[in-house]
C-alpha cells in the first residue's frame, strides 16, 4: 500500500464510523421526538438514555474527518472548502443548535417538548445535507466562473440522483437507529419499547434497500465513471445485500431464540456489516478521485514528511485512547446498572 492509499483508507474508515455512529445518534433524536407522547412504552427514555453519553463522542468524529481531510489531502480541502461553504455551514449550525438544546433539555425539563422537536427535526435534516458531499465529489455539480468555483446546489437537490441520495440518508438513519434502539431496549428488558423499535426497523429495512437501488440506478446517468467502476465491485455489493437478508431475517424470527447472542444483536451486527461492505465498494470504486475530475489522491496529497509525523501521532493517540474507550463502553453500553436504571 502506498502512503496515499493508507491515508484515504484511514479517512474513509473515519467517514464510515461517523456515518454509522451519527445515524444512531440523529435517529435516536428523531425517535425520542416521535414517541414523546407515548409515555407507557418508554421508547423516548430509552432513546435518551442512549443519547446522553454518546453524542459528544460522536461529535468529535466530525472534527476528526475534517482534520483528517485537511491534513492528509490539503489539495482537496481547497476545492471542497470552497464549494461546501453553504451546506457545510448549515450542517454545523444545525448541529450546534441540536447539541446545545439537547443538553439544555436534560437540565431544564420545562421546555422538554420544544427542545425534543429541535433535536428530532435536525436529526433528519443534517444527514440529508451531509450526504450531499458524496454526489458533489462525483462531479457535475461544480461550476467555474471568473476563476472561482461555485456549487450548483439547486441542480443537486432537484436531480433524481441527489434526491435518491437524500432518501438513502434519511431512511438509513432511521433504520439503523431503530435497529440499535431495539437491541438496546431488548438488553434493558423494556418489552414495549422493544416491540415499537422492532416494528419500525421492519418497516424501514426494505425502504433503505429500495433507496440504495435507486441511488445506484440514477448514478448511471449522473456519474457514469463511478457507475462503471462500481460494477467491478459487484461481489462486494452482493455480499452486502446478503448481510441485509441475514439481519432482516434475524429481526423477523421469534425473538426468544438465541444463536450465540440474542437475535436483535445479530440483526444490528449484520446490518452494520452490510453498510461496511457497501461503503467499501463505493469507496474503492471512487478511487483515485477525491473530487472528480480535478482532485485525485495523488494530486491532493500532503507533504510526505507531514504524513509520516501524522501517522505516528495516530498510532500513539489511539494506543493511549483505546483503554479510555473500553472503559467508556463498559460503563454505558454493557453495565446493567446504567441500562436498567
Amino acid at each position: 500500500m502506498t502512503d496515499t492509499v493508507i491515508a484515504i483508507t484511514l479517512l474513509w474508515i473515519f467517514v464510515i464510523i461517523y456515518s454509522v455512529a451519527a445515524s444512531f445518534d440523529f435517529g435516536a433524536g428523531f425517535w425520542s421526538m416521535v414517541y414523546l407522547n407515548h409515555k407507557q412504552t418508554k421508547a423516548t427514555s430509552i432513546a435518551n438514555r442512549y443519547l446522553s453519553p454518546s453524542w459528544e463522542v460522536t461529535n468529535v468524529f466530525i472534527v476528526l474527518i475534517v482534520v483528517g481531510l485537511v491534513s492528509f489531502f490539503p489539495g482537496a480541502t481547497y476545492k471542497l472548502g470552497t464549494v461546501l461553504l453553504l451546506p457545510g455551514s448549515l450542517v454545523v449550525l444545525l448541529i450546534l443548535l441540536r447539541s446545545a438544546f439537547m443538553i439544555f433539555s436534560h437540565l431544564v425539563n420545562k421546555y422538554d417538548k420544544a427542545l425534543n422537536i429541535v433535536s428530532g427535526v435536525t436529526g433528519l435534516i443534517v444527514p440529508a445535507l451531509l450526504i450531499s458531499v458524496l454526489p458533489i465529489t462525483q462531479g457535475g455539480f461544480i461550476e467555474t466562473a471568473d476563476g472561482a468555483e461555485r456549487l450548483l446546489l439547486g441542480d443537486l437537490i432537484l436531480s433524481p440522483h441527489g434526491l435518491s441520495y437524500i432518501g438513502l440518508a434519511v431512511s438509513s438513519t432511521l433504520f439503523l437507529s431503530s435497529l440499535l434502539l431495539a437491541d438496546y431496549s431488548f438488553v434493558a428488558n423494556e418489552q414495549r419499547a422493544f416491540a415499537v423499535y422492532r416494528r419500525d426497523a421492519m418497516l424501514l429495512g426494505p425502504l433503505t434497500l429500495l433507496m440504495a437501488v435507486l441511488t445506484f440506478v440514477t448514478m448511471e446517468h449522473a456519474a457514469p465513471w463511478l457507475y462503471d467502476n462500481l460494477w467491478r465491485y459487484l461481489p462486494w455489493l452482493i455480499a452486502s445485500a446478503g448481510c441485509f437478508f441475514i439481519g432482516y431475517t434475524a429481526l423477523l424470527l421469534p425473538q426468544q431464540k438465541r444463536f450465540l447472542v440474542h437475535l436483535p444483536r445479530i440483526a444490528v451486527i449484520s446490518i452494520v456489516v452490510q453498510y461496511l461492505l457497501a461503503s467499501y465498494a463505493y469507496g474503492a470504486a471512487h478511487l483515485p478521485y477525491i473530487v472528480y475530475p480535478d482532485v485525485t489522491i495523488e494530486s491532493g496529497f500532503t507533504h510526505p514528511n507531514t504524513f509520516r509525523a501524522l501517522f505516528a501521532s495516530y498510532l500513539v493517540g489511539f494506543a493511549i485512547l483505546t483503554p479510555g474507550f473500553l472503559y467508556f463502553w463498559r460503563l454505558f453500553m454493557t453495565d446493567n446498572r446504567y441500562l436498567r436504571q
Partner: protein
Amino acid sequence: MDDLLLARSLFGTTMAFHIIFATLGVGLPLMILIAELLFQRTKDRDYALMAKRWTKGQAILLGVGIPTGTIAGVQLSLLWPGFMEVVGKVISLPFQIEIFAFFLEALFMSIYVYAADRLSPRMRIVSVLLVLLGATASAVLITNVHAFEGTPAGFRIENGRIVDVDPWAAFFNPSFFVTAGHVTVSAYMTGAFAIASVAAYKMLKEKAAGRAYQFHQKALLMGLIVGGTFSLLTALNGHESAQYLHRYQPEKLAAAEGLFETQPYAPLVIGGFTDPETREVKYGLEIPWLLSFLAGNRFDEVVVGLNDFPQEFWPPLFVHTLFNAMVGIGCLLILVGFVGFAWKKMLKRDRFPRWAMWLFAASGPLAMLGIEFGWIFACTGRQPWVIYRTMLTADAATKSEGLGLLFVLFTGIYVLLGAATVLVFRSYFRRHPLPLDNPTGEASNNP
C-alpha cells in the same frame, strides 16, 4: 463590507463566542479538581457540593463549547481554504493531536458527569484530572497553530510550492511555549475569577451570615487565591510574550505600543489613541525609557518603530487600545486577588467591605473581557498577514459568495444561544438551590 472583511468578521465572531466557553472549559475543571481534592483532604462536604454544582455548570457550557469548537474547525476550511492548504502540508500535527485531547476530555467528562455515582473517589479524581488534562492540551495545541501563524517555521515557499517541510520544526516554532503558556494560565485565572464572581454576588444577596453565606465564602476565597496566583503568572508570562514580539514580530509590538520612531531609550505610552496622520499617540501617559527596558531588559535597547515598515504592512493602529485594555485588566486582577488574600489571611478580618465584594463580583466578567481583548489583539495585530510575512489574509480567504447571509445567520444563532445559556443557568440553579440542610447531595440526581 468587502468579502474579506466579511470572512474575517464571521470567523472572528465565531471565535469571540467560542473562546468564552473554551476558556471556562479549561478553567473550571481546575477548580473542580481542587474542590474534589479539598473534599478528600478536609472531608468538608461543602467542597463536594461545589464540585458537583460546578460540574453542572461545566456540562451546560460544554453543550455550547463543543459544537462551537466544531464550527470553528469546520469554518477554518470553509472560509480560509488557502490557509488550510498550507496548514495541511505543514502544521496539521497540532490539529491532529488536539483531536485526541478532545476525545480524552469528552470521554472522561461523560464518565464524570453521567457515571459519577458509580465511580470510586480515586476514579473521580482521575476522571477530572483527565478532563483537565484534555482541556488544557486542546487549548495548548490550538494555540500552537496560532503561534505558528505569528512565527512560522519548518517550511519554505519556492515558486509558490511548499518545500523543505519539517512538521516538528513547525510544531516547535519559536513562540509556541510562551504563547501556549499565556493562554493556559490566563484560562485558569478566568475560571477561578468566574467562580469568585458568582460567590461574591451570592454573598452580596445573602443578608444573614448563614450556612449559604459560609459556603459561598469558601468558594470565593478559593477563587480569589487561585485566580490571583494565575493572574500573577499570566503577567509574568505576558512580559515574556511581549519580548518575543520584540524579537520576532517588531511591527506588532510597535503597533501595540504606538511607537513610530525606531529608537533606544524608547518610552512606554499608556492609554491614548494612535493618530496615523501625526504618527504619535495622543492623550497618552508617557513613561520615558520603560519600553526599551521591557522589550530588552536594558534602557538602551533599540525598539523598532512603525516608520521602518511600509504602511501597507502596518497592523491596524487601534490594537494599541486593545493591548492597553488587556494589560490594564490583568494588573487590576492581580490587585483583586491580593486584596482578597491579604484581607483574609494577613489582616485576619472575617468580612470583606462592600466595595471589595463588588470588585470581586466584577472580577469574572473582567477576566473574560481581558481574554477577548487579548485574542482580538493577537489576531488583529498580525494583519495583514495570516501567516506572518508568508501569506496574506486576503490570499487565504474563500472566493465563494453569500458570506453576508451566513454572517447574519451565525451571529443570530450565537446571540440566541448566548441568551439560552444564561436562561438555562438561571433556571437550573434556581430550581436546585443549595441543599445545605441535606448535605448528601441534590434532590434530583438527573444529569
